[in-house]
């Protein structure tokens, strides 16, 4: 209940910020929607020249892209602003204030600000995904949809844990803004079919070391009834492992942390 109340306050405060910069919010929302639309347009242009890419038809590729966008926008809306604030707090010393608060440090690192424009722009990929599902040759079952949602949640958790693990390097190197680029790489990889990895071993490396495959390929494959059991299990295991490792890394980092403020 205590954490729930904190979350409620954070949601309220973020809404107040949106109310101050309304034009900015609308434009950010527009930007996110444009981003989704342009991505789909790119796929459209490519499929003028090919019928399928590694067994993925145009509609399936758009579903994969939308799945990636859903995970991306959820992370950008709910988690990313707080991760950025976390690495900033280490370099300017304001992390001290987080340490003295009677709230779990993992909770503080991952929650706080909400980027509503990114969050609401989820609508664009969701609408396109639903439209594309309707135009498929086969019927998507309720179980497919439930499993898809479960693995989208797993993907968001996995992405959060992975980025938290990377950002824990800030305890050692202080300035780690370059790491934010890894997030963009991860998202760029996730929207491409897993067949870009020619070898099975390489594909598993992108499940357990750099987890790009579980972010969109696994949820989209489940939805399209293309998934295979070992990959689905590996994604779930990867999600749990990254959560445990990232939590341990943050705790270890805190022990080494020395304040940058005076």
């Amino acid at each position, binding site marked *: 209940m205590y954490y729930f109340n904190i979350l409620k306050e954070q949601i309220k405060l973020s809404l107040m910020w949106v109310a101050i*910069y309304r*034009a*900015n*919010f*609308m*434009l*950010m929302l*527009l*930007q996110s929607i*444009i*981003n989704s639309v*342009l991505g789909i*347009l*790119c796929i459209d*242009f*490519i499929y*003028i*020249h*090919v019928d*399928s*890419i*590694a067994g993925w038809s145009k509609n399936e590729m758009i579903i994969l892209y939308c799945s990636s966008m859903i995970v991306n926008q959820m992370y950008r809306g709910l988690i990313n602003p707080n991760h950025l604030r976390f690495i900033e707090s280490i370099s300017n010393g304001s992390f001290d204030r987080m340490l003295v608060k009677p709230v779990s440090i993992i909770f503080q690192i991952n929650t706080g600000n909400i980027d509503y*424009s990114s969050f609401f722009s989820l609508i664009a990929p969701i609408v396109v995904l639903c439209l594309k599902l309707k135009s498929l040759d086969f019927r998507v079952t309720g179980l497919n949809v439930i499993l898809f949602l479960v693995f989208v949640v797993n993907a968001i958790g996995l992405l959060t844990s992975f980025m938290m693990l990377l950002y824990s390097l800030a305890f050692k*190197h202080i*300035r*780690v*803004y*370059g*790491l934010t*680029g*890894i997030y*963009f*790489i991860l998202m*760029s*990889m996730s929207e*491409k*079919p897993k*067949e*870009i990895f020619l070898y099975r071993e390489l594909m598993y490396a992108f499940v357990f070391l750099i987890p790009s495959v579980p972010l969109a390929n696994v949820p989209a494959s489940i939805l399209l009834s293309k998934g295979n059991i070992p990959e689905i299990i590996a994604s779930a295991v990867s999600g749990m492992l990254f959560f445990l490792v990232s939590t341990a890394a943050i705790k270890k980092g805190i022990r080494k942390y020395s304040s940058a403020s005076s």
Partner: protein
Amino acid sequence: MQKYLYSFRMHLLESFQYRFDTVLGLLVSNISMFITIIFWMLIYRSNGTGVLNGYTMADMVTFFVASSLFRTFILNGGGFEIASMIKNGDLSRIIIKPHSINIFLYWKYLSNALFEFIKQFTFLLLIAPFFAKHLTWKLTAQSIILLIAYLVTATFISHLIWVLLGMTAFWLEQAQAVMWSFAVIINFLSGMFMPLDFFPHWAVKVLELLPFAVFSYIPAKLYMNQLSFAQGVNLLIVYIIWILVLLLLNLMVWRAGVKKYSAVGG
């Protein structure tokens, strides 16, 4: 002029300070390019003909490698900096100084661009032996001269566009959204995700005349010798006209913006 060159030198030296971040940035940007290339290889394998819309696989790899190098000359930092100055009131301190903020920011971010270019070029030279067979080498003396002219033009156009967008902060206060919205569109229209030739034919003709194509598409085409010298010169004239138009717009928006500007704090 000396003061701008001094700031240019100072910012160039500053760029060498954070080595961990620098190496990380270099790796990240190249991995991104590498993924795009691998994806296109997959498309070529699926297509089976070896040629897509007139591009062989080597052409496509060359296009993305050359683009990644030329994109380092996109100066977008000035826009973000001016937007931030307007928002937090720092502009008050700057406008009383005896230098033009626009020119100062241009030199500052040109030094950054040069640093990024050197970094990227050195990295590509180091790894070139491993993928040289996947590249096309069609650069001529004429195209080198034109290419340099294009890259200089790209620095002017990108700086002017971004500063113009940054100046919307005079009215919006928070201009980040405008800038990111345009960043997405500019990336798309400059051929970052795919060569503009993959767009519908009518659109290519229009897009070539817009100022965004100069950021990577046209220089990459020049590098690949897919654009004749005459075509290159004609398009360069169009982009020089764009510089004049953008300069005029910058001046008008700056004047109107400064009238509207009010700083918070003492």
